[in-house]
């Protein structure tokens, strides 16, 4: 399954590259607009190692960011699942913070927490948490009557139990969203690096962009794709393992 993901990614990337090169040759564009295959190859040989390291660095932050964001989403989703005033308040807050473009928040963030790893983590988590939150909210606000009735009737219902029941009944959906959100954490970390860091692949992309070096960007995208496909695949496998272990369907 893992290797399938990787070669499927290779196919997709090859298709994308092919399209770009086709445009290049059909329109007769210079290497500045779209680098030549050999140019990309050369750039690749030069930068692949470095970029691979950068992506690794980014992956580390993304993973941490994802963990934070899943907890955050769980927390907000659980707090905001009820149709009460407080639930609605939490949701309004969560939604609004999300709507603010990170670039606009960045200055405020810098003032509040400075720059560095923490900001990077925070931005990654902020970008990643919201989609998870939406799913958690959807799942957590729908009762599972057949199971919950007993607990409610006998006065045994606690919020933890309610959350556990609903999570368990929607384990497949939750693991899909959580493992899928890895992608978002990744993208979020890259954005964070782009606007706020001095390390990671986002930072390298920024420099490549400033130098209008499309070849480097393509190499970076390739590295991101490969690493993400692997990480994503691993997450899905562990999602399945969780489902098996918890005895869900």
């Amino acid at each position: 399954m893992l290797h399938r993901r990787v070669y499927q990614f290779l196919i997709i990337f090859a298709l994308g590259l092919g399209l770009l090169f086709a445009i290049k040759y059909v329109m007769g564009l210079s290497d500045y607009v779209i680098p030549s295959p050999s140019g990309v190859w050369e750039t690749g040989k030069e930068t692949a190692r470095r970029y691979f390291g950068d992506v690794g660095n980014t992956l580390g932050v993304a993973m941490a960011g994802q963990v934070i964001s899943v907890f955050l989403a769980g927390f907000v989703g659980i707090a905001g699942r009820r149709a009460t005033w407080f639930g609605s308040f939490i949701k309004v807050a969560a939604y609004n913070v999300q709507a603010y473009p990170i670039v606009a928040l960045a200055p405020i963030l810098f003032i509040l927490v400075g720059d560095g790893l923490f900001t990077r983590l925070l931005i990654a988590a902020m970008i990643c948490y919201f989609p998870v939150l939406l799913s958690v909210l959807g799942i957590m606000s729908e009762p599972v009557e057949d199971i919950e009735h007993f607990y409610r009737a006998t006065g045994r219902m606690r919020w933890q139990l309610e959350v556990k029941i609903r999570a368990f009944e929607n384990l497949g959906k939750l693991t899909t969203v959580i493992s899928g959100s890895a992608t978002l954490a990744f993208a979020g970390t890259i954005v964070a690096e782009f606007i706020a860091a001095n390390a990671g692949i986002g930072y390298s992309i920024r420099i490549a962009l400033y130098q209008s070096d499309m070849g480097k960007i393509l190499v970076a995208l390739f590295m991101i794709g490969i690493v993400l496909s692997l990480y994503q695949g691993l997450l899905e496998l562990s999602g399945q393992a969780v489902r098996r272990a918890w005895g869900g369907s």
Partner: protein
Amino acid sequence: QPALAEEEAVYRLKWLFNISVAGGLYADTHGYFSEQGLSVVLKEGGPERDAVRELEMGQALFGTASADQVIRARAMGSPVVVVAQLFQVNPLQWIYRPGELRIDRLEDLRGRVIGITYGGNDETIMRTLLAKAGISEDEVELFSVRYDYTPFFQGRVSIWPVYRNAQGVILEDRLGRAGEKTAFFNPADYGVRFVANSVVTAEKTAGRSPDLVRRFVRALLKGWSEAMDPKNSAETIRTLRRFDRETPENILSEQLAVTRRLVVPKDGAPIGSIDEAAWRQTEQIMIEQGQIQEAVGVEKALRPVF
């Protein structure tokens, strides 16, 4: 009377509508393009925009690009040529608080926290300056600059790169209102003349439609000349206000004054003159800094229209 069929041309700017594109806006609003039988669409630029690419893609006929962009594009075989040079002095300078430090010599940079945009041409320029002063990288602290100025505001960074004529004036004003003095560190004062914005077009356009190019450049430079003319100050500001609603009038007028100093050649040459020596130096710096592998013969790309 309006020409029957005006030729259409897209002009991709380097940045948002602001003081740095004053001449283009002036030419546009005062009908100088129409006078030349042209219908020009000015499009705003930005960091993700690349006029040189758009020339090749046929999405724009003219553009504004920085010298390093042009040289890099030439190095990669892009058929771009320079038809006019808008800034005689590079507006990219560093702001600092003179109360906190003095910069009279390059050596004064030693030990400072200096803001640079990694990958940007301020990095190239600063590294050149440091090399020139014999300051090694571990004798200063380079700070990666982003969208916002908070680190400078908070005093964590003492020298911060800005566009002298645009943000420079705004920051000067803002800090001034808080009672702080500001000064600017200009690389050109230390012999580093890295060319900034120029007007570019595709070789093909220059070769096949020299007349079109001539008319465009004539109109554009007329716009710049009029806009920079002190007697038109009020009119220039009025024009700018239509596009740049965010900047207050007093700031605009200060920006205009600064821009005038950067755009109008000191030696009485016409606005838009190409400073070939500066271009050669720029190319040389880029080679030294490893931005390009070898000389591209930048003079071949310079096609001054006048």
